[in-house]
């Protein structure tokens, strides 16, 4: 075999393997989604959205868990989102070149990939212990802490994409910096910031570990933020590991609901970006 054939052979082999790797990756995505649809659809019925979580063996739905998840995710993003946006604004505008900004960016990146169970422990120490009991509020704060670094990062990136000329034009009209930010920069970066918020919601709505010992769980309807509250991820965790078939079925249906909404959110976020900045960033 000539050296040339050998090189070609190695080339074909390596490229085939890389195609194979991609196929394996896609296979697992397909396998997970197939399992979810297959097992989740079996229990999908209107009762799922109208009834409370049942005792073992009884029939019921996931209403209180869906409500609790929605409430905690909403409060989480309402706390974490604005703080993250303000911090991102500081990094992109006021403190762009400040030395402390480099430190903040670095720390934010670390927080971005910090294990979420650590955040749960932190909130347990800071909120649950002083309050004396688990609460929906503590769960929401834990989610806010996870949402914040995501928003900081996307806001800064998006504000940096706004052309300098637009900012200069506003400044030249005599506008103060805050006026420029509010009336020129934020509107120009709106789609990017919205995308960041959507991704943050997608990220926190499936988080389980930080809720385990902050919001805990509740078998019944609870609108009280100072008390434990049911939420989808923890219900899925407890029901999936239980020996009761009706609980396991609910866990699969809950898993389908949560994954479908998160994937839809992530895809929607992509469309917001590509429809408003054609040819822009991914």
């Amino acid at each position, binding site marked *: 075999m000539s050296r040339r054939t050998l*090189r070609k052979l*190695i080339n074909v082999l*390596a*490229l085939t393997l*890389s*195609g194979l*790797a*991609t196929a394996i*990756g*896609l296979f*697992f*995505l397909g396998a*997970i989604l197939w399992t979810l649809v297959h097992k989740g659809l079996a229990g999908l019925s209107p009762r799922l959205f109208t009834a409370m979580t049942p005792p073992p063996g009884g029939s019921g739905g996931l209403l209180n868990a869906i409500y609790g998840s929605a409430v905690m995710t909403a409060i989480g993003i309402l706390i974490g989102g604005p703080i993250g*946006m*303000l*911090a991102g*604004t*500081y990094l992109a505008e*006021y403190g762009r070149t400040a030395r*402390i900004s480099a430190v*903040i960016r*670095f*720390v934010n*990146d*670390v*927080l971005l*990939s*910090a*294990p*979420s169970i*650590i955040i749960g*422990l*932190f909130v347990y*120490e*800071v909120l649950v212990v002083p309050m004396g009991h688990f609460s929906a509020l503590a769960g929401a704060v834990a989610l806010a*802490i996870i949402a*914040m670094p995501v928003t*900081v990062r996307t806001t800064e990136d998006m504000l940096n994409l706004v052309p300098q000329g637009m900012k200069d034009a506003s400044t030249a009209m005599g506008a*103060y*910096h*805050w*006026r420029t930010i509010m009336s020129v920069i934020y509107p120009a970066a709106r789609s990017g910031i919205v995308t960041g918020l959507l991704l943050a919601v*997608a990220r926190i709505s*499936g*988080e*389980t*570990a930080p809720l*385990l010992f902050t919001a*805990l769980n509740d078998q019944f309807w609870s609108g009280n933020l100072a008390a434990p509250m049911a939420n989808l991820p923890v219900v*899925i*965790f407890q029901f*999936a590991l239980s020996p009761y078939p009706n609980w396991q079925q609910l866990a*699969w249906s809950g*898993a389908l609901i949560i*994954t479908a909404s*998160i*994937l839809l959110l*992530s*895809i929607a976020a*992509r469309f917001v970006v590509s429809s408003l900045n054609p040819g822009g960033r991914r």
Partner: protein
Amino acid sequence: MNTVSAIDPRHAAQQRLRERVFQAATLIAALLVLLLLGGVACALLIGAWPAFAHFKLSFLTREIWNPVTEQFGALAPVYGTLVTSFLALLLAIPLSFGIAIFLTELAPVWLKRPVGVAIELLAAVPSIIYGIWGLFVLSPVLQRHVQPWLIEVLGPLPGIGRLFQGPPFGIGVLTASFVLAIMVIPFISAVMRDVFETVPDVLKESAYGLGATTWEVIWQVVVPYARTGMIGGIMLGLGRALGETMAVTFVIGNAHRISSSLLAPGTTISASIANEFTEAVGDLYTSSLIALGALLFLITFSVIAAARFMLLRLERKALSSV
């Protein structure tokens, strides 16, 4: 001069005040990020203090974990965390490398985006979904088809045979590593793809011009150029694998012991905390679990910080070469 007198001094003062308030608000929000990381570190240390003070260094070196006699040692969970993450990377790195190559060098343009998005969606799936999928779908398959084969074929071998002993439980260290690998593939391949895209086309075209094959361009031009970024991406994946909770908790078996066999159940730091924290009675038990959390924080913090530092250096390099 008319324009100057047209400015209402009260209006100007109001504008200045708002400017100051807004600027202060953004600064405070930014400082909150720093405060948060400091707060997390302090809270963990304070919470872990009773355990560290009681067990001293033996907390790190003992395998025992007995809530009844209140004897706690972190060795088994720390070992489990490191071993599962290491095995997960061993499986995930070649696959992620292949995916990144496929996406940057091989895929036709029409295929690039859909496949890229599909791999990224794999990253958006919540970890608890990986957990139940691993428990109900993957582990029965491994138990019935893969593990008996491993025990039969690799078990009798000297050396590595010790890793494949015992009955096929289905759940255990190997299964956990497998699920973790599937979880970190999208993270590592996304970073690798991004750093491969920073390689200047001129470099690749020069190599092609000299008659190199696609693989030779990748191995001898793209990889050396992108090495720092690739390592950064791998370490980011490692950080994720080390701290991952739900996916592991379902399939690791939660057994506080160190077993030489990869098929045996084990535990990781995050799985121990998730499984036991709400049921822990007694201050020493709770404190020991928080101490585990502090160890995890220390390990992941160093890994993530090193990864970010490497990617940061690469970013500067890319900026200066433009």
